[in-house]
């Protein structure tokens, strides 16, 4: 593919040909797809959405519109605006003046890119993945369920982060591979201080949250796809009280399926083709990877115990032959 853009990055297994520099590793080998990223002035976007009625979730600062040519437009009021072409091959973006670069990259490389991924036939999930002994351990759950805090606790013990927020999985020879996302993690300052130390500086993600974006160095990031060992669906904070024990249980295939479907990324594209693909993709994953539900009290001091319980779980429950369990 001949491409006029000066940068080629690798993210989620995609070769991203970009007009602008991004905080991503350079693309090195193999790819699931190729996409292009370019910038455009405000007039390009205002022309594109002229006559389009944008949808907005009540109370949200996010607006979305679908154009007649199947392109999707999205903007976050203090971050920037994005147009994703109908075939998912090209993203046009514009950061707003008040946006920090870090904040813009977060929305570009997760929310905006999710439109391109779905339009390209992929099914991204809302998940955080850490790498334990070369295998991916996936945490599913709504925002605020503790995916990133738990991942930070794994980083503290020397494990690596694969992705935080958006996950792309691909079935390869009956294995499920998880692909690396941008090398960063989103955490509240206190959690970052506790698990990552004081040396890292974070940048606020957006004015609506206290969460900060922390870049991760090569020691803490995994840049290659890894096979998925297990998927943990985190019980919500409301399902657990402080004195509860840490426990995990296997989910039935149907429950596993529903957890995966519940945690698909991008709920704006809901045409029948996408929904049908989503169903088949989730059903296929359930047949290949164990999905467990994890309950743990939301107490910082207990997170290392949660981490240890997961590692023990991976060895004893999921590999009983090796451990004699």
């Amino acid at each position: 593919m001949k491409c006029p853009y000066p940068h080629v990055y690798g993210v989620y297994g995609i070769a991203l040909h970009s007009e602008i520099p991004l905080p991503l590793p350079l693309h090195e080998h193999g790819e699931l797809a190729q996409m292009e990223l370019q910038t455009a002035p405000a007039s390009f976007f205002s022309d594109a959405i002229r006559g389009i009625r944008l949808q907005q979730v009540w109370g949200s600062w996010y607006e979305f519109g679908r154009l007649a040519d199947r392109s999707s437009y999205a903007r976050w009021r203090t971050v920037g605006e994005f147009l994703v072409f109908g075939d998912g091959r090209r993203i046009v973006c514009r950061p707003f003046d008040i946006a920090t670069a870090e904040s813009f990259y977060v929305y570009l490389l997760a929310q905006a890119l999710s439109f391109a991924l779905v339009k390209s036939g992929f099914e991204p999930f809302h998940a955080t993945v850490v790498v334990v002994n070369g295998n991916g351990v996936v945490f599913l759950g709504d925002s605020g369920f503790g995916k990133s805090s738990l991942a930070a606790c794994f980083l503290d013990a020397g494990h690596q982060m694969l992705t935080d927020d958006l996950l792309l999985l691909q079935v390869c020879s009956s294995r499920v591979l998880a692909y690396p996302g941008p090398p960063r993690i989103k955490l509240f300052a206190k959690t970052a201080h506790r698990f990552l130390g004081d040396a890292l500086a974070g940048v606020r993600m957006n004015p609506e949250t206290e969460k900060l974006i922390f870049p991760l160095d090569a020691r803490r990031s995994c840049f290659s796809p890894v096979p998925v060992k297990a998927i943990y669906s985190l019980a919500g904070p409301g399902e657990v009280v402080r004195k509860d024990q840490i426990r995990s249980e296997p989910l039935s295939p149907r429950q596993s399926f529903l957890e995966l479907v519940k945690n698909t990324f991008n709920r704006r594209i809901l045409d029948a083709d996408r929904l049908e693909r989503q169903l088949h993709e989730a059903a296929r994953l359930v047949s290949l990877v164990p999905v467990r539900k994890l309950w743990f009290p939301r107490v910082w001091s207990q997170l290392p115990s949660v981490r240890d319980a997961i590692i023990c779980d991976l060895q004893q429950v999921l590999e009983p032959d090796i451990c004699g369990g």
Partner: protein
Amino acid sequence: MHLLDETTVVAAREQVSCDFGGEAAILNLKNGIYYGLDPVGTRVWHLIQQPRTFGELRNILVSEYDVDAARLGSDVEDLLMRLAENDLVEISA
């Protein structure tokens, strides 16, 4: 509305489903809503992937399950009516 023996039922076209070891998940493609069926419901769902009369459906199930025929007919009718309310089956006289 009650189903007659000669009433024909068939799974609607705008849905997709998958089977998880005897339990089915059905996705209504019109509204994006998922529905779940227990093993008996899943058996009914499999049977109505092709048009069948209610009487034929009931007879097949009576032969497969150790259950009172009248009770089974009533339960299956309830299930089919609920599926119809959610646009998952088509019922025609």
